[in-house]
């Protein structure tokens, strides 16, 4: 049975899976409701339910992060496929989806990448209304600083590719950078003075937990089941096609299994002997104590290996390059804090007395070309949405939408066709390393 036939078998049983009107669910959030519950002192219902594990589902999604949850939501909302289970070995949004620095942008380098990530920005713009959940998307602008002629050249390259795709990006000089961000040192004092920047006004930050919870709540209302603490121990196949998964809570039969994990993408794919060209690196981040809001945009410096943004609460969120060796460890290191601190003080000397509150790490599955791996695999019914490296959270909505379309129609959507697994054997790499925030 081909993938298209596996898909066809999903929709057959008695019209039960017929496209249904999108239900908003019982607990629609609104200002009026806040007022009503405030004066009556009544509790809010749970955002999503807990279920017993069923014997079979039409689609099993491994990984309840933004990719898995978005895929489940768009399967239900756009295609009426609701007999879906999202499994997570830990808790929802506890991996990369809750550990990233929540930066959204589409100023990539390749036309395929720019088109893809820009669709994600568009979906993020409408997400709060779509999900009836405040995701706090703030399109405050995104500045990628250039400290060398070589990086300025790459910024110009990216700006031209962006403009050609209709994306608002341009290269600005150091004086203009200084006008946009008052506290940035644009003088000649630093060892590597700021020469200019790629300015991307649609870029910004979002509340990543709200995105996870919003997708989970909306998917749950449409009938999707989310199973936390449910670890996939094995994937069953017969005659080269997927028949189900084994979990710590029992076996499930399913014709389609989607690998939406980050960090464990190779571990899951190895269960069906699909080899992934991935190396897992931890990426660390840190957050300071909150201060009065002073930083108007997201600031990235590739040469100094640091990026920073200020949350609505006033905390500064820092990130840097991935740890220089493969690892699955999610612990922070002193080397990271020291290096980030010294680099950020080159950019913004005035924050020298701020204290770091927390630091953590998330896992990034790095591909050879820094583009993801999406779509079908040699095993029928085993689909992948992996290899996100450091770009995963930005791509959540568009990946979910595209993977849902692939599952529902059996055809690979044009927007992800360049990101197939076979490109590594065929030599069709989509080199996106030049768009990395920092040189990993």
């Amino acid at each position: 049975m081909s993938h298209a036939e596996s898909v066809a078998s999903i929709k057959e049983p008695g019209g039960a899976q017929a496209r249904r009107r999108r239900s908003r669910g019982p607990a629609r959030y609104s200002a009026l409701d806040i007022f009503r519950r405030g004066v009556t002192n009544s509790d809010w219902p749970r955002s999503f339910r807990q279920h017993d594990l069923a014997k079979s589902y039409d689609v099993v999604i491994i990984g309840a992060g933004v990719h898995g949850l978005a895929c489940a939501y768009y399967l239900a909302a756009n295609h009426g496929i609701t007999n879906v289970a999202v499994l997570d070995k830990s808790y929802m949004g506890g991996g990369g989806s809750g550990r990233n620095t929540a930066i959204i942008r589409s100023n990539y380098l390749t036309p395929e990448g720019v088109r893809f990530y820009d669709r994600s920005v568009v979906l993020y713009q409408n997400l709060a209304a779509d999900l009836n959940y405040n995701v706090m998307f703030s399109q405050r602008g995104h500045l990628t600083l250039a400290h060398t002629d070589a990086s300025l050249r790459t910024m110009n390259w990216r700006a031209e590719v962006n403009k050609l795709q209709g994306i608002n990006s341009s290269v600005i000089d150091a004086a203009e950078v200084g006008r946009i961000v008052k506290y940035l040192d644009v003088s000649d004092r630093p060892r590597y003075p700021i020469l200019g920047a790629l300015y991307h006004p649609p870029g910004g930050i979002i509340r990543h937990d709200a995105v996870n919870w919003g997708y989970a709540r909306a998917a749950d209302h449409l009938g999707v089941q989310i199973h936390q603490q449910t670890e996939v121990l094995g994937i069953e196949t017969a005659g080269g096609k997927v028949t189900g998964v084994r979990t710590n809570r029992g076996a499930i039969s399913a014709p389609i299994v989607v690998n939406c994990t980050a960090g464990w993408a190779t571990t899951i794919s190895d269960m069906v002997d699909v080899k992934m060209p991935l190396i897992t690196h931890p990426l660390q981040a840190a957050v300071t104590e909150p201060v009065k809001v002073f930083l108007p945009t997201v600031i990235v410096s590739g040469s100094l290996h640091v990026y920073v943004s200020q949350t609505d609460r006033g905390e500064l969120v820092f990130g840097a390059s991935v740890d220089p060796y493969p690892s699955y460890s999610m612990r922070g290191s002193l080397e990271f804090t020291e290096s980030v601190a010294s680099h950020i003080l080159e950019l913004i000397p005035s924050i020298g007395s701020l204290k770091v509150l927390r630091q953590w790490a998330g896992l990034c599955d790095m591909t050879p070309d820094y583009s993801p791996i999406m779509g079908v695999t040699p095993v029928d019914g085993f689909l992948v949405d992996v290899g996100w490296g450091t770009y995963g959270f930005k791509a959540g909505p568009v990946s979910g939408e595209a993977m849902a379309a692939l599952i529902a129609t059996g055809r690979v959507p044009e927007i992800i066709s360049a990101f197939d697994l076979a490109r590594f054997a065929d030599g069709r790499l989509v080199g996106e390393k030049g768009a990395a925030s920092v040189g990993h």
Partner: protein
Amino acid sequence: MILIDCPYCGPRNSTEFRHAGEAGKKRDVTTNDPAVWRRYLYQQDNPLGWVRENWFHTAGCRQFLCAERNTQTNEFRWVAPAGSPGPDGASDNGSAR
């Protein structure tokens, strides 16, 4: 801070070293098939747990080393000059692939 016990220099901070890939990866010189070459180029085992790998002591003796490290805990249990037979006596010459 992770210490790596360099057989030439003694225990040093891991920042002195550069990770140089999984050990035992060998190109098949008997074929010129691009698919085989690309598999050699792009494919890693990327295991969760103990792995045999190569390191280079960039800021020290500038020698290649082979080591066994746990990718979940970053614990090193064995470090030796490059090409040494492992603690179990097995050589690293392409046994995994």
